[in-house]
């Protein structure tokens, strides 16, 4: 059981780091590059992320759910935190599907289109991504706390 918890923590930490890299470092950095670089980079990255990240979210949600279920069945301390973490993962996914997902799909279709800079037009997307990162961080925090409680 502990190995499963370890894997879940590592996978979430890495997912969160990857999301942070794109939202807080790569996108703001690329927004300062010239139009051609920016649109090409967005296009390529959106395509890659669209292939990789959904599986990662699904895997983390699955791991959280399995651990939460196990803790609930064993009635050990921390099962509530684990359940809350799984719910937060669902919230993060729910934020992605109607929001960032379609935006990413549009980015992957508009190669060399003139994409907006980090201005008023892009801020909502930026904040949406930021919100998702915060939700993921909260989920990870709760999950780690649940694992400590149950250990």
């Amino acid at each position, binding site marked *: 059981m502990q190995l499963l918890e370890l894997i879940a923590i590592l996978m979430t930490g890495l997912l969160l*780091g990857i999301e942070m890299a794109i939202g807080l470092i790569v996108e703001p950095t690329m927004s300062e590059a010239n139009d051609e670089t920016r649109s*090409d*980079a967005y296009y390529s990255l959106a395509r890659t992320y669209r292939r990789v990240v959904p599986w990662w979210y699904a895997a983390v949600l699955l791991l959280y759910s399995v651990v939460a279920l196990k803790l609930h069945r064993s009635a050990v301390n921390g099962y509530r935190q684990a359940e809350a973490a799984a719910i937060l993962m669902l919230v993060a996914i729910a934020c992605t599907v109607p929001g960032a997902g379609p935006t990413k799909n549009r980015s992957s279709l508009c190669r060399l289109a003139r994409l907006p800079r980090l201005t008023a037009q892009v801020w909502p997307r930026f904040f949406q991504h930021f919100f998702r990162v915060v939700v993921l961080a909260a989920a990870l925090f709760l999950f780690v706390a649940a694992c400590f409680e149950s250990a």
Partner: protein
Amino acid sequence: MQLLELIAILISGLMVGNEIAVGFIIHPTLSRTRSEVYSDSARALARVYGRVMPIWYAATAVLFGIVAFELYRNGTNGYRLAIYSVLLVVGAIVFTLNGLLPINNRIAGWDLNRLPDNWESEIWRWDVLHFIRVVMLMIALFLFVAACFASA
């Protein structure tokens, strides 16, 4: 103490995730774009990461060190794993300073109108060294989380 362990796991997990994103997603993806886009993006990212990552590495090393020291002082299980993780993070920092930092500084200083002839091999070399560093960091993170579990 547990809060400190939580924070250390969170900060180091984010850092390793960031490094994985750069090494396994961002750079390979950008390498498939046109050379102007690739060189421009690589330079911009080298500048930003060059400013951000030293603080992140230092914070991780300090947090790992404090937790390892506490585990050692309390004589709890898992202190050896925590010490190994500290050694690996310190090793990754030394490796970065000697191997990756000089290349990163050269990439950040590129004049895009006069790129050096070996610019692609510079990035490739950086990617290879970065891969080694990511492996070290992943092992360190795994050991640290295992140490926290063992001591809980």
